[in-house]
């Protein structure tokens, strides 16, 4: 929903400013200044929207974001792809994990503008177009590797990354290298079992 604050929200003309006076010299002046600065520098100015293009689940996407917009906000709010969850917004829980250029990352700490040209994979991009689940998705379902399911998209992407990185050699290694994904329901042993099953399948 990011938009240029200089332009009122479509269909919402009533601005309510209760409780104190003044307030909204906002819009035009600031945005004008920002545009001027943008012309001088190879930069994105504060409060201006800037375009960023990345590949999302195999498709090129271009969107306009504020400098402060994080990748998870761009996914959820700008693109409406809500499979990626926010659990803390500070890189402390791993719920927002996505793959970026093949690496698992916390999308809440990634500024969207820094994903220019990157390949992003979210939970929505794992099953094949025919609906067949990715082996990790199938293993999570089969092993009951979740309860509430909220951390699950992040767990699954992290699990894929864990094997890709070569850190799924043993149960102990999986536990250590899956410790960036909190699961408050306590499904950890089943998560480990799911990853072992997929690892064995891939090796077999």
């Amino acid at each position, binding site marked *: 929903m990011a938009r240029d604050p200089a332009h009122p929200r479509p*269909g919402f003309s009533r601005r309510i400013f209760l*409780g104190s*006076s003044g307030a909204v010299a906002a819009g035009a002046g600031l945005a004008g200044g920002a545009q001027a600065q943008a012309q001088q520098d190879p930069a994105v100015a504060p409060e201006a929207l800037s375009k960023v293009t990345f590949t999302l689940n195999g498709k090129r996407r271009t969107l306009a974001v504020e400098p402060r917009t994080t990748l998870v906000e761009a996914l959820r*709010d700008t693109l409406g*792809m809500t499979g990626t969850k*926010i659990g803390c917004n500070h890189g*402390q829980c791993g719920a927002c994990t996505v793959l970026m250029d093949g690496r698992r990352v916390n999308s809440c700490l990634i500024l969207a503008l820094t994903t220019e040209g990157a390949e992003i994979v979210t939970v929505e991009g794992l099953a094949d177009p025919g609906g067949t689940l990715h082996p990790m998705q199938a293993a999570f*379902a089969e092993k009951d590797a979740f309860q509430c399911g*909220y951390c699950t998209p992040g767990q699954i992407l992290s699990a894929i990354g864990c094997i890709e990185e070569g850190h799924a050699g043993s149960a102990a290694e999986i536990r250590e290298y899956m410790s960036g994904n909190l699961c*408050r329901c306590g499904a950890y042993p089943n998560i480990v079992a799911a990853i072992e099953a997929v690892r064995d399948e891939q090796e077999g």
Partner: protein
Amino acid sequence: MAQTINTEVTRTDARRKVTGAAHYAADFTPAGMLHGALATSRIAVGTLTGIDTAKAEAEPGVVAVFTHANLPDYKTVKGIYSGGPGSASFWPMEGTAIKYAGQPIAYVVAETAAAARRGAQLVEASYEEGEAHIAMDPAQSFIVGAEGDGEGMTLTKGDIAAGLAEAAQSVDVEYVTPFQHHNPMEMFAATAEWRGDRLTVWMPSQSVRTLRHGISAAYGLPETAVRVISPFVGGAFGSKAGITPYTMLTIAAAKAVGAPVRLIVTRQQMYTVATFRPESVQRFRLGADASGRLTAFEHVEIAQTSQFDEVVNPGTHMTRSMYASPNIHTEQRLARSDTNSGGFMRAPNEMQTFFGLEQAMDELALKLGMDPVELRRVNDTDRHPVAGVPFSSRSLMECFDAAKASFGWADRNAEPGSMTDGDWLVGYGCATATYPTNISPSAARVRMQATGHAFVELAAHDVGTGSYTIMAQIAAARLGLPVEACDVVMGEAHLPLAPISGGSTTAASAGSAVHLACLAVGAEVARQVSAMSEGPFAGVDPAQITLEDGMLRGPGGKSQPLVEALASTPRGEATAEGQYRHPALTDEALRRTYQGGYGVAGPVTPEMAMFAFGAEFAEVRVHRWTHEIRVPRLHGAFAAGTWLNRKTAHSQLMGGMVWGIGSALLEVTELDHTRARFLNANIAEYLIPVNADVREIRVEMLEEQDDYVNPLGVKGIGELGIVGTAAAIANAIHHATGKRLRRLPMRMSDLV
């Protein structure tokens, strides 16, 4: 027909959860939606003397800023512990009073979440600060409900002094448990959309009817005008039951700005805008004769509460149900301090009280020179120690014996500090688990079609517990359909009554309603086929036709699959509702439940005492150099009546045990006593277990038949697994190190 009950069934919502297609509250975005953010109080006690919203309003994208001065009116409701639907009885932004740190003082609405959050940071407030006490003072505690004492908040049976006098050994010990926060992975969120006088609220909820009731009361709306939607809940554990200020403020803001508004509460704010597990002190005095039989049992619990609610989760009711003793004295006390109101968090009293009781039993066993398992055995009882009624079923020692064998307890050298492995000190410990069987009234509607499909509808919730799946299993078993042919709709308030998903009630209560609704579908089909001119049941008295595992059976050995019978009827569809009420449920409890509250039968009825039991064994390792405490093995055996789904039940019990590890070793909400704020209000420094903390967890699920609890014979298991874990670990730490840790969490700093 494959067996659908007491077997392993993969969750029916698994596909949605692994593909990101399960929609949680913050995933619904009504058209034109704006974003909310809370500004909260820096101080804990005092008065707001000024609030300047100019900078917030000037922030680009900010649409409106609400404070107590301009917030639309609504009628506030009482907190759950004061008989209302609220998470607490005090409502912020109604005036200038500040009663806890982190109390909402302003609500910012903006075009983006980022702008709203920045706007909230820019709200400037000034205060007249009062003196705050965030930690309770046990010396200021008071007995709850002293007048009349209808709920048995104090109880004396026999003579404690005499019991202690005749004891061969006794212990007099105090255990301390901290503030803890639920920290579900899903952040609190609420989205409100008004369309004229009709309101829709998306919010993760473990009680959609409580929510609807509270909102209707607040806005003077008929309940039919309020829709509450919560199909998936990203963990709750007690945190998402009552209606909270952040919800009410979001509804108010949406009304004022004339557009839908969504608020996602920050992780830090989650520590103050909803409930938590209050800190407590547990004092036990136990006496036993030389054979180990208890001669005296005294438990005084002092728990923290706020200045505006009496949050009592009566732990003494639980502990005094546990072991036989001729002399019993219990007191339920509270002490106030300046926080928001606490509430219920997974095993709301049992985690704390059994951390105390089961360590006290271990300390007593050591003094007696008895094996701790045998001390439990000699004090086991088939009658409730206070009420005198029999237990409807009680498999405590079967659980101990099963877990003891699986764990290898026989290998234990009883001498503390005697077992080592390299740089690790090794200890074994065990403890009892128990949880009351609370049975709520519940209803469900089932519509079956001749195509072999059924719709099951009820206002229950799947907070990760597997409710969607077990309701489908129950329907499948009764109607003779595959599980995947039974579509379960839950998590909306307009559906038939179901209880709060709390107190481990849902499977037993709502499951029984689904069971009865299916039988009612059978009766409806029986009525239809008996009225027909042909077919096996034509002309048969419908009262003589029963439904058994998908087959209609009548006199003379007549039988027909239900789905076939249904197909023979002109409508080809039958709908019926089931209303379940335990015979011991009072009218008052029934009324309370229909009003969105918590009304249950049990755990002690005039005829029976209903509890689930378990035994947990822990291996603990303490590192010689780092003093780190690790739990490489945790074995639990549990008996809780009928197992509906062995896969999801296993996960629930295992998850409870993981919570036990967290409570034992990690979880504490730290207090800044000087300024009365929670210090580690995040999930980096509020430590919950990570994958590496959880190694071998073995769960054994024993068979147990109980025909009294409900038609399904089910007891709740959502909380059973956490009870006793912390004590088993504490006992194992003592065994490993010789050090007795009586304060949670138990950390390396306690062992240096």
